[in-house]
């Protein structure tokens, strides 16, 4: 009785092992299902989901204009201080002083891509970008200034 049980266990273990190996053998010979994604060779065709959050970007139009009014609601909404907005006073054509952004500092090294800043923005000035290839050798390169040099506020945003 003991011997029967003993050899039965050995038989069953080998059988169950072979069952598992059969499955691996099946996938080894049936190549219809290939899940591997050939990054970086597929960079040309690789498309992220449209809502994918890779980084915060500030779109500029062809006249080098953006939509950011410098209201700082994104800075307040950011849970870990990765946004810093430096504003300046600009004198308009009619002599009035208006608050405008000087630099829009974005710490990509600290950003958790939580989307709270984009939701908080009242003028849709910032959007989430699709780029995810941010690897750098130097940490300083991860501190970015999002507004381009000489860029202006788009007309009609503030009203």
């Amino acid at each position: 009785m003991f011997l029967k049980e003993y050899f039965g266990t050995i038989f069953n273990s080998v059988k169950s092992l072979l069952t598992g190996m059969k499955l691996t053998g099946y996938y080894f010979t049936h190549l219809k299902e290939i899940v591997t994604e050939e990054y970086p060779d597929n960079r040309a065709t690789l498309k992220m989901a449209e809502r994918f959050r890779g980084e915060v970007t500030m779109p500029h139009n062809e006249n080098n204009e953006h939509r950011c009014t410098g209201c700082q609601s994104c800075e307040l909404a950011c849970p870990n201080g990765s946004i810093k907005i430096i504003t300046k006073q600009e004198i308009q054509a009619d002599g009035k002083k208006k608050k405008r952004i000087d630099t829009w500092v974005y710490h990509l090294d600290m950003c958790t891509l939580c989307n709270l800043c984009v939701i908080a923005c009242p003028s849709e000035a910032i959007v989430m970008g699709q780029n995810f290839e941010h690897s750098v050798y130097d940490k300083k390169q991860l501190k970015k200034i999002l507004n381009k040099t000489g860029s202006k506020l788009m007309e009609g945003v503030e009203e």
Partner: protein
Amino acid sequence: MDIKNNVPANKLIFPGQIHETPDGGFLITKLDEVINWARSNSLWPLIFGTSCCAIEMMSAADAKYDWSRFGFEVARASPRQADLIIVAGTIVMKMAPVLKRLYDQMPDPKYVIAMGACTISGGPFFYNTYSVVKGVDHIIPVDVYVPGCPPRPEALLHSMITLQEKIKNEAFFRKS
């Protein structure tokens, strides 16, 4: 592999990079290339994950992303057998000495990838925390930084290819 053409020129410059000089000998230059080729294509990472980024590191190892296409698949549990440490996750004050010891145990040449916002700068735990190390480069030297919280597996693969590019620029015999 065309990744070098896709990396912007300013990203290829890193501190301490040795630039090629015209009077290098042919033999040792070629020997260097062979050594760097061998080193860069057999980077064995240490299994070191503290939090969320470790899951994405595991994803990079799975069938979909499959980092063994680049020779990274031999993940080692012992630092003595590893060339590369991917710091995946927050490092806190209590963990810092452990990480330093792990790094010291690794044989030369050794490389470090700082994966995710927590390891680069403290990230989400930068402000108002009492126990988080604000950037792993306070403890060990970092070669490549990859931001994201956590970075997706492709981003990790990109960082590893970027590291390979760095290794290919190294000089073994051409030391002054």
